[in-house]
């Protein structure tokens, strides 16, 4: 991380100078042109309206500043008396109207093209939840979660921040080049918004409803974006990364994913046919807990008063196992408690439940086996 004084020095350079150093990583100042036809056309619209308001601003403020100078009392002691001029007033109603019409026409054209969702090659269902994204390739029937990969150490300034701080995920969305990709966007809990500036795609994810957007990217590469609708405390921490690959590589990737899924299910079979001991499950469970559960329930299992229930000594974690299992696997309606069955493996769920039932003084001595989890699926 750069030193504070360094940043201060760079930050205080007048904006005029920054205009000439648009590529300095700390000081991007304009909209990104992006990599799709649509994002470039939108950039064009942005530039047009920016120039229109700049010119109007120069004229209006110019007149005003001239007046400050030429009509100040020391130079112009006797004020004029006029207070009406019908022609002038008609002119400055009509001229702006014409300018607005001139701006509205290209905007309308671009908008109609954006809203043309027809004939797509590929559909991706994007499901938002607090605070991660899930992508399903509808035709290929492949799905996975995509979570922030930046570490807590970096966020809390205990480690230096990497270049793509807050803009890294564990599993990026992979898309092929030169294909019209249709996005269906929805949410499991609150409203989120999926934004990828380089594609100029921003679509709200609304629970219970699906929205639609599309893109077509020609250049392979890594593109980054973020959630743009306030969605709770993790709002700043659910980035979007899209990796665009040439079509052949994309097909190979899909095949790889299928293979990986098959391997994972083999591992799962092996895992659930084994009987696990408490000693094996506890450290695994602690790891899962810290990664997925501790943000709300806290590492000490005490929860947050009034918001997230404590797990230490609670009825859920010391009561009967099927209820506990059901709550973890399927979530709880109308709360922030998510369904973890689709997100974690049988072994991980078994481990975390075993951990919760034996940590923080919850000495139930219960050991939950992956097989039990599997049977509850």
């Amino acid at each position: 991380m750069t030193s504070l004084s360094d940043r201060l020095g760079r930050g205080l350079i007048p904006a005029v100078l920054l205009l000439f150093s648009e590529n300095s990583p700390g000081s991007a100042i304009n909209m990104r042109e992006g990599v799709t036809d649509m994002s470039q056309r939108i950039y064009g619209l942005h530039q047009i309206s920016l120039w229109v308001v700049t010119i109007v601003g120069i004229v209006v403020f110019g007149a005003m500043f001239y007046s400050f100078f030429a009509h100040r009392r020391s130079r112009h002691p006797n004020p004029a008396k006029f207070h009406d001029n019908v022609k002038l007033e008609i002119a400055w109603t009509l001229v702006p109207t014409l300018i607005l019409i001139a701006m509205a026409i290209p905007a309308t054209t671009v908008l109609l093209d954006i809203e043309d969702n027809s004939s797509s090659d590929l559909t991706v269902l994007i499901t938002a939840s607090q605070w991660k994204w899930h992508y399903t390739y509808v035709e290929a029937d492949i799905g996975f979660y995509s979570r922030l990969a930046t570490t807590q150490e970096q966020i809390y300034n205990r480690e230096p921040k990497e270049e793509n701080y807050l803009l890294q995920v564990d599993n990026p969305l992979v898309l092929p080049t030169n294909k019209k990709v249709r996005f269906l966007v929805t949410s499991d809990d609150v409203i989120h918004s999926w934004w990828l500036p380089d594609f100029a795609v921003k679509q709200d994810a609304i629970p219970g409803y699906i929205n639609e957007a599309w893109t077509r990217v020609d250049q392979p590469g890594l593109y980054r974006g973020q959630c743009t609708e306030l969605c709770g405390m993790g709002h700043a921490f659910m980035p979007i990364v899209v990796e665009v690959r040439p079509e052949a590589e994309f097909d190979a990737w899909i095949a790889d994913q299928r293979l990986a899924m098959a391997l994972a299910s083999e591992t799962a079979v092996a895992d659930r046919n084994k009987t696990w001991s408490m000693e094996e499950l506890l450290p695994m469970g602690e790891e899962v807990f810290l990664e997925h559960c501790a943000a709300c329930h806290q590492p000490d299992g005490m929860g947050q008063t009034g918001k997230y229930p404590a797990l230490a000594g609670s009825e859920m974690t010391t009561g009967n196992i099927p209820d506990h299992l059901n709550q973890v696997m399927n979530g709880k309606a109308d709360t922030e408690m998510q369904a973890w069955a689709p997100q974690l493996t049988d072994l991980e769920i078994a481990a975390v439940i075993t951990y919760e039932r034996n940590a923080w003084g919850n000495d139930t001595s219960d050991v939950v086996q992956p097989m039990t989890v599997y049977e509850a699926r």
Partner: protein
Amino acid sequence: MSTYGHADTGTRHPLVAFAARWLLTTNHKEIGTLYLWLSFTLFFIAGALAMGIRAELFQPGIQLIEPEFYNQLVTMHGLIMVFGAVMPAFVGLANWMIPLMIGAPDMALPRLNNFSFWILPFAFTLLLSSFFMEGGAPNYGWTFYAPLSTTYGPPSTDFFIFSIHLMGISSILGAINIIVTILNLRAPGMTLMKMPLFVWTWLITAFLLIMVMPVLAGAVTMMLTDRHFGTSFFDASGGGDPVLFQHIFWFFGHPEVYIMILPGFGIASQIIPTFARKPLFGYTSMVWAVGSIAFLSFIVWGHHMFTTGMPVFGELFFMYATMLIAVPTGVKVFNWVTTMWRGSLTFETPMLFAIGFVILFTIGGFSGLMLAIVPADFQYHDTMFVVAHFHYVLYPGAIFGTMAAVYYWLPKWTGHMYDERLGKIHFWLAAIAVNMTFFPMHFTGLAGMPRRVVDYSLQFADFNVVSTIGAGLLGLSQVLFLYIVVKTIRGGPKATAQVWEGAEGLEWTVPSPAPHHTFETPPVLEDSSGDAHG
């Protein structure tokens, strides 16, 4: 700040007398003063919350404020600024000035006036107390979108709902009072088209308030029943629609934006002619422009929702309607510039703030026009660009407008001139700091920084440093403002009745400070040539 007590002080303890005077007052000037002080207090509280936000955003990473608390700060900053700082400030100015400007002895419904003020301290105590509740203060942004605020809201949400109800009642009663006063208590000869523009803008603002505050009350009532009584207005799982919440909210919310700016238009239209020593240009078109803006404000709410999956015909309608607002707004700006044109300008503090208002508000209007372009809005929406836009509209619009008004009328209220040198320092500090704080947000927003985030990636670091330093300066400049106001109340050169050489209008015919009771017999309007418009 008149010192005329009218309550019977008798043998009571001075403190009791003091409390009784302010608690029971029905005098429009005293109630105006109460509103202004309440607004000032809440302005500092909400400003302190903003300092917390900016401090956390000084650098990437989480340093001072946890994400959950950050969301509470963002929410409460917005709510208190909108409902606590801006709206009561304008109502306070209306209370003080409307009767003086139209030659009325008081507001039409003085006891109601007292009631609508005294609701507010309770409403805001309730709202602020939520910081100390289990689960913390509201944390879903001032727009409180469902289901984040309903199903997922903290327990304090119910207190928030109740306090919104109280604020709504206060605003509606205040607005009714203002309309009834303007329609019934004008001095003989003061026809509607001779009213000062501040009165006109407030008349229209009051109608907006009466039409939209009940809609907000309806929205929060639906939230309440969704939360506790099993309805599902906004809950998809019960057959409701979260997007419906946004429609109802913005049906309130967009006119609300104009509620926070129209009285500012009125103030600029009073001050600029005074210091240009020239009548306001285009009085009639000014009135029509305010009316059209108010009308249009009811049919543009959808422009806040372009990314919610609105069908293309909806997007086109709201885009065109929104762009149309630029026309009457442009007319107003052109009129102000032409009022100054070939005038005889001097730049006392009220004029400086009015000019700052016109320039910076216009910049906010420009970014507003850009935001109306739907395809481009897909890139701007919910980024810091929007934050820059509405702070450019509201800080110079509502806050600079109010400050211009305070400097302009403070001599009338206190009988003392403020310290002109300090006033100018205040203006320049505030003007520089406002731009330092909010201009860089255009850049970070365009470059891709979402709004309402507690942490951001490294590419946005530099401009956030500038913003935070600007915000600190801005906060300090307002402490100076407090000092100037207090100093003026306590003493200073005596102000004449007219105060400003170029000032015209009934409020300048009464002595400074304005006596406790004014215009008990209606004033006689002088020659009614069009020049009398202030």
